[in-house]
């Protein structure tokens, strides 16, 4: 009895935070139609603020990158000591002042998120909203790590923890307090939504925003209030649960995936189902944990870690399309999938660009060579995002997990099983494709944000089941090694000798190999854009119903996109494996997947040019190396600024850097043409398919 009952009771702790996050997700979804991937990160950030206040009474402000830093970097001076705390270190605050100050911060964060991000995105396509919320997740996560470090923190007791006897199980009474708080919160939310004018108005707005506005409800105010409530809920429960679970930068942040499962079971609209499912998931998690620990005869295949994924997949298959889509008007366009006509000038331009890249790859100093190799691999990873997200409008948050599958597989097939390079590479890429397709299957009946959720859950599951556990890829939390790639007896790994140069690692031979792969990949994706399949992808992206009526097999096109995208992710992963030589699960974790989306969107999600731009931005890429060498060491701020810029791109310029440059260039061309008495640039010359 004890073995089953005890873990179920222990599950109240994690269950409470899962339920509370699920409630917050439902609140903000009902009010603004946004699924906030950053919701867990809000809980993390507020919990750390609270712990910091309890520890030494100082109020931490987020690590704003010092705006003067580039100038300081160039001139080697310090202009201003940028503040990161309010107040002097001293005695920690007591519970209530610390709680109130933390929750005010949460409310402030909520209203900022509403006003600066989701209010401007009201009429934007789902893609932009999801990308912005991923930006919030990345930025807050990075803020926590920068601000408070990545070590776990303890939090002082809030509810009395003395154990009580409950049907023969001794368990801390704080569990019951937490459970009670969750139930009371659910009751209040349900009552407000059901019986007050505010709740009715919010529900009306969720059905049809325009109609609700006509009836005199101010949907904007409701959304703002709901964001404040959602953030404060996240913060409150993060704080209340922290004495039991402790605080780590990732725990609450990634718990958003499990909470999404709970919220989805309640169709993103039922508070009771979301809360009960959340508590149930917490209990199931503890139960499975105990089963895996105690019952050694149960095969250890990682069911527990797959739980969120399984719940989300089940919710999607069971509920299909029933997740309510809001009746808001979508007026804004998706990023332009610009495909330039291949004029002679353009070919010369491309050739010049490749030659320049080759020059850097061969002749540049080793740190630039390394940066260039990372960037070129980044281009291939970004291309994988361009296909699935840019061309078909489906958001994948698991690209690095797919890359990881290939990275581990290429070592298994090549180095360990001794297969020759082309075969090992093809098999590794096939493994990525298989994983990508399996993960995409449950989402074929749904679209938009649902896909982002399922891929986030899949990415996490792949990481935890396959990369972080012994077994499947024989990884066992240790690192894996991959030999240098070789063909016809010629080695071209990062340490293979090259005819010229300083022989420092990485040598140019690997760079040349990566360059060839990158150029081929770019050509393939440009071809894809112009092919019939590419046109069908863009048709599916705009309107699935109309695409089906025009004879397009929507499910097949989506699967093709996922397959192709996974193939490029796999290629990128295998190249990463060669580049690193020895690597572990860290290189392919969930946040690196989010980064792939962030950089790709920033560069320009719907064009090959955008992917190339994205490549320069990738961590340890050529852009970062150059910046470190010549301007300013962005180093630790990369993730933080990536998140910030990702939000900015989603809100203000969804075309990314590539589209921005293109529009500037076309503007310039048109000015010149007007001066010469010519008409504006003929669209024929630029948009011919």
């Amino acid at each position, binding site marked *: 009895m004890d073995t089953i009952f005890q873990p179920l009771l222990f599950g109240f702790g994690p269950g409470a935070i899962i339920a509370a996050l699920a409630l917050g997700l439902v609140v903000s979804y009902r009010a603004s139609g946004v699924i906030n991937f950053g919701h867990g990160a809000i809980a993390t950030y507020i919990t750390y603020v609270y712990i910091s206040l309890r520890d030494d009474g100082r109020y931490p402000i987020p690590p704003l990158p010092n705006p003067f830093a580039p100038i300081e970097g160039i001139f080697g001076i310090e202009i201003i000591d940028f503040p990161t705390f309010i107040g002097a270190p001293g005695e920690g605050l007591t519970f209530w002042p610390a709680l109130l100050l933390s929750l005010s911060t949460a409310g402030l964060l909520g209203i900022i998120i509403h006003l600066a991000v989701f209010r401007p995105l009201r009429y934007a396509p789902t893609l932009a909203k999801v990308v912005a919320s991923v930006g919030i997740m990345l930025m807050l996560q990075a803020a926590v790590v920068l601000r408070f470090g990545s070590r776990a923190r303890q939090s002082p007791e809030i509810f009395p923890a003395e154990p009580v006897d409950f049907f023969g199980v001794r368990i801390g009474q704080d569990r019951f307090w937490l459970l009670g708080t969750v139930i009371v919160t659910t009751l209040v939310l349900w009552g407000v939504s059901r019986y007050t004018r505010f709740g009715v108005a919010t529900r009306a707005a969720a059905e049809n925003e325009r109609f609700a506005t006509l009836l005199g409800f101010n949907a904007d105010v409701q959304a703002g209030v709901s964001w404040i409530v959602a953030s404060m809920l996240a913060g409150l429960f993060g704080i209340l649960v922290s004495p039991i679970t402790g605080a780590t930068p990732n725990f609450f942040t990634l718990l958003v995936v499990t909470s999404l499962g709970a919220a989805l079971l309640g169709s993103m609209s039922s508070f009771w189902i979301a809360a009960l499912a959340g508590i149930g998931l917490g209990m199931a998690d503890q139960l499975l944990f105990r089963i895996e620990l105690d019952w050694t005869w149960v095969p250890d295949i990682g069911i527990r870690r797959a739980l969120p994924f399984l719940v989300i997949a089940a919710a999607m298959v069971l509920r299909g399309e029933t997740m309510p889509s809001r009746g808001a008007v979508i007026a804004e*366009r*998706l990023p*332009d*999938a610009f495909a330039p006509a291949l004029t002679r000038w353009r070919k010369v331009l491309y050739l010049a660009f490749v030659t320049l890249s080759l020059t850097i790859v061969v002749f540049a100093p080793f740190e630039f060579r390394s940066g260039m190799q990372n960037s070129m691999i980044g281009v291939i990873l970004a291309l994988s995002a361009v296909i699935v997200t840019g061309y078909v409008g489906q958001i994948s948050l698991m690209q690095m997990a797919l890359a990881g599958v290939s990275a581990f597989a290429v070592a298994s097939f090549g180095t360990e099983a001794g297969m020759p390079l082309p075969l090992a590479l093809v098999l590794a890429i096939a493994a990525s494709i298989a994983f990508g397709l399996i993960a995409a299957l449950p989402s074929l009946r749904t679209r938009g944000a649902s896909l982002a959720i399922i891929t986030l859950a899949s990415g996490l599951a792949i990481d935890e089941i396959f990369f972080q556990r012994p077994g499947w890829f024989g990884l066992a939390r240790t690192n894996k090694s991959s030999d240098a790639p070789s063909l016809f007896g010629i080695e071209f790994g990062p340490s293979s000798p090259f005819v010229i140069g300083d022989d420092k690692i990485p040598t140019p031979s690997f760079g040349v190999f990566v360059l060839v792969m990158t150029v081929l990949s770019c050509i*393939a994706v440009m*071809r*894809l854009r*112009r*092919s*019939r*399949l*590419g*046109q*069908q992808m*863009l*048709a599916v*992206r*705009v*309107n699935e*119903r*109309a*695409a*089906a*009526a*025009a*004879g*397009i*097999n*929507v499910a*097949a*096109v989506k699967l*093709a996109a996922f397959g192709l995208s996974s193939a490029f992710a796999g290629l990128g992963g295998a190249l990463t494996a060669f580049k690193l030589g020895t690597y572990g699960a860290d290189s392919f974790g969930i946040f690196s997947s989010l980064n792939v989306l962030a950089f790709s969107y920033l560069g320009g999600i719907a064009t090959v040019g955008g992917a190339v731009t994205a490549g320069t931005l990738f961590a340890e890429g050529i852009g970062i190396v150059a910046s470190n060498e010549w301007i300013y060491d962005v180093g630790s701020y990369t993730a933080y600024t990536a998140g910030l810029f990702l939000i900015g791109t989603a809100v203000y310029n969804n075309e990314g850097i590539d589209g921005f440059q293109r529009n500037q260039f076309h503007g310039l061309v048109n000015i010149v043409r007007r001066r010469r008495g010519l008409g504006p640039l003929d*669209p*024929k010359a630029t*948009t*011919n*398919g």
Partner: protein
Amino acid sequence: MASEPSAHDVVLQTRGLSVTFGGLTAVNEVDLDCRAGQLTGLIGPNGAGKTTFIDAVTGFLPNNATGHVELDGTDVFGRPPHTLAHLGLTRTWQTLELFDDITVRENLTVASEPLRLRDFAQDFFRPRKVPDRVEEVITLLDFEDIADRKPRELSQGQRKMVGVGRALTAPDTRVLLLDEPAAGLDKSETEWFGDQLRSLVDGGVSMLLIDHDMGLVLRVCDRIHTLVFGELIASGTPTEIRSNPEVVRAYLGSGEI
């Protein structure tokens, strides 16, 4: 189905087609014929179930529709929309739903043929030419000047024609279902649009035109069906429909005639 002894064979027919949403019957046991080479009209006041009827015929309401839909004598009811399009049953949308990201020519091209794996592989190495069918439609509808522009750069009337063109480009269009194509057009545009449709039909295309613009339908259609509250209340030539007391009553009731 036995072909009728008329000069115009029935290309599309529905038998007992019903659509229910929950307890509400939106379309009730509709038997309707479209003859080859003719422009068939389907009129009815707002809310009569006209668009629901098209949605059901083109496979967009798999869970709500019952009955039979026969295309050239084969029962195609229950097949998914893209398969129906390949069989030659295509449609336009009241809200147009063009693919705004790609050019007019690409809009037509995506609809022109089912994608086979072989073609897809071939596209990578040597992109194929635009199919002849697409160029034919471009010539037929005088799209030469707009073929390389994107739909959002065009006038509303042109956009409507692109919608028709896209439905026409399907590999073997048997019958075209037009859902209120004249909505949002002014009087002269509507007239121009009607003439375009008529000339397409005279060139051999079969169409079902849904509209509540009585003037347009009466002017261009060969036969007209009238749908009121989900029931077919009258069928006949424009002259017969014009003088049918039930139709007049239904329309007088809604004040549209």
